[in-house]
């Protein structure tokens, strides 16, 4: 991004000058996250979550690589190899619990990051590409997490794999052959375990690549901000370093505090006891549930109980489950309001806080519960609202609502008056 007032990289250290001449990596870092990247001065703590997501990914990669030194991806020994890690490997229990709860932390952070995007209209032009790349990252994360959960080969690992790969069987005509191809067999077994291990190891690095694109795409227009008003003058911004490196430090400390509390004091709080039972293809657990971060989607999947003409309910559920994520790709065109931030969109805000958030919370609760009649009923109503919110309500609201007047600039919003001695220069 070329804000004309951005600090220029001027290394004083002769070694750094030499390095920068041969390979401009120092300059690149300086301009991306250093003092050379101007960022709106009014970002709130919701803007910390991108960096936190990157940190969470690093935690998963480091703990994952180290665990892979001890894990045996063979169905007869996989479960025991995890117990070997927990009992005999030096600090193995810490690595396993960190990796297990790190996945939950990753999703907590990413969901908050996504909700920031939804509320502040970060998906609106010119940042649609950032949004789309982010959704790709989210899909890759879900695939990675799903395959990772299968690896310990517990009851939930096996039966979760069975249910989710079974969904592919719902696709008409080609469904069953695709399912068999995915599994390498007729049910999850050694073949599935081995390929899931390979892909689980690979995908985080694909995610890393997409993250690079995601941040690159962001740095073209630069970060948005809570007012949704674009940067106009130098007074609207501060250099990323030291202002936001300092703020990210606070965010990191809170992140690791929460992470440490989970890992050391409640390591199995977010997990399922059934996964401490070795996989048994002959005994179905009382309640097959995926990990908590999949619960809203699981609820949508199970909400479809009635066939529609020639479409079986099972297929409807699968289509709806994927649609619930894919519809987010179209958000920039569904929400056509010229005002980005929810702060200045009172009607949008109401539907966000009283409609969308409670609905997703309810869907999450239903997804983790036994599929009793009343739970299914509640999920049907909640899922109906979910689709209506994005596909019907948002497009209508964005056309008819009266927005609050926007501040003329970030500086005005922050300091209470227009920037002084500065001609309004549009950012390039």
């Amino acid at each position, binding site marked *: 991004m070329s804000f004309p007032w951005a600090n220029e990289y001027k290394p004083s250290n002769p070694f750094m000058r030499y390095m920068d001449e041969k390979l401009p990596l120092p300059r690149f870092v300086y301009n991306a996250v250093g003092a050379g990247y101007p960022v709106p001065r009014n970002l709130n703590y919701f803007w910390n979550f991108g960096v936190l997501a990157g940190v969470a990914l690093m935690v998963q990669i*480091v703990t994952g690589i*180290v665990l892979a*030194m*001890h894990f045996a991806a063979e169905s007869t020994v996989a479960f025991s190899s995890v117990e*070997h890690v927990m*009992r*005999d*490997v*030096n*600090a*193995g229990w*810490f*690595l396993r619990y960190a990796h297990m709860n790190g996945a939950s932390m990753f999703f907590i952070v990413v969901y908050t990051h996504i909700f920031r995007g939804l509320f502040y209209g970060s998906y609106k032009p010119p940042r649609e590409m950032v949004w789309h790349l982010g959704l790709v990252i989210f899909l890759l994360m879900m695939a990675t997490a799903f395959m990772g959960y299968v690896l310990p080969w517990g009851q939930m690992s096996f039966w979760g794999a069975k249910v989710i790969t079974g969904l592919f069987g719902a696709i008409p005509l080609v469904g069953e052959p695709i399912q068999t191809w995915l599994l390498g067999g007729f049910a999850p077994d050694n073949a599935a375990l081995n390929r899931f291990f390979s892909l689980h190891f690979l995908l985080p690095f694909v995610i890393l690549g997409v993250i690079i694109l995601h941040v690159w795409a962001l740095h073209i227009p630069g970060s948005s901000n809570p007012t949704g008003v674009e940067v106009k003058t130098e*007074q609207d911004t501060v250099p990323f370093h*030291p202002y936001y490196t*300092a703020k990210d*430090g606070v965010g*990191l400390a809170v992140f*690791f505090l929460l992470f440490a509390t989970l890992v050391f004091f409640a390591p199995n709080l977010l997990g399922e006891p059934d996964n401490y039972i070795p996989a048994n293809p002959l005994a179905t657990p009382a309640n097959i549930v995926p990990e908590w971060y999949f619960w809203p989607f699981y609820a949508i999947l199970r909400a479809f109980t009635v066939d529609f003409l020639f479409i079986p309910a099972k297929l409807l559920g699968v289509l709806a489950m994927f649609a619930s994520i894919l519809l987010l790709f179209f958000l920039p065109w569904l929400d056509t309001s010229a005002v980005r931030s929810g702060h200045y969109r009172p009607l949008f805000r109401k539907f966000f806080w009283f409609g969308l958030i409670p609905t997703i919370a309810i869907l999450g609760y239903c997804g983790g519960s036994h599929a009793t009649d009343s739970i299914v009923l509640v999920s049907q109503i909640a899922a109906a609202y979910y689709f209506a919110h994005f596909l019907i309500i948002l497009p209508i609201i964005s056309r008819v609502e009266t927005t609050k007047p926007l501040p003329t600039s970030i500086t005005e919003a922050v*300091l209470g*008056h227009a920037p*002084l*001695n500065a001609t309004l220069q549009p950012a390039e």
Partner: protein
Amino acid sequence: MESMASLMEDSATAGEEQGGVRRRDFINVAAASFAGVGAVAVVLPLINQMNPSADVLAEASTEVDLKAILPGQAIKTIFRKQPLFVRHLTPVEVAEAEKAPLAGMRDPQTLEERTKAGKTQWLVTMGVCTHLGCVPLGAAEGEVKGEFGGYFCPCHGSSYDTAARIRKGPAPRNLQVPPYEFTSDTAILVG
């Protein structure tokens, strides 16, 4: 006046900057250092996890029963996942080993140095050639014992004598004697 004040609220005055920044930077340095300490504290288990795990360390000792090994016989067994040779030397072999001249040996050692006091007939060595790691022949019944009556490595021709000392061939050192103790007259604990 107003505009001046507003301009100033946005940046520290020049005068205060020098001393002020140095004074105030302490907290920044403290926070960064704490982060560094934390990072080291986390890296330690990451490195330590590669050290042998508890089950590997538990198999670090092996008991060997000597009752069945008659003079002239040897057994091949496993110690720390590697071959171990336990040989019951005959009096002839003991004499040979004690007679051999140390001068001219690549790795001079007496038989006494390589066995336990009063039990020089028991030769306990690793079964790993010190050249490039092959398993020498000579422990099992009928195997070639080489020119010096001890062990012979078929890979590159290293020949060991009755005290498993290297006498001919490319191996640089004698067969390694692992730490061991006699737990009784008929059993040893290796490692």
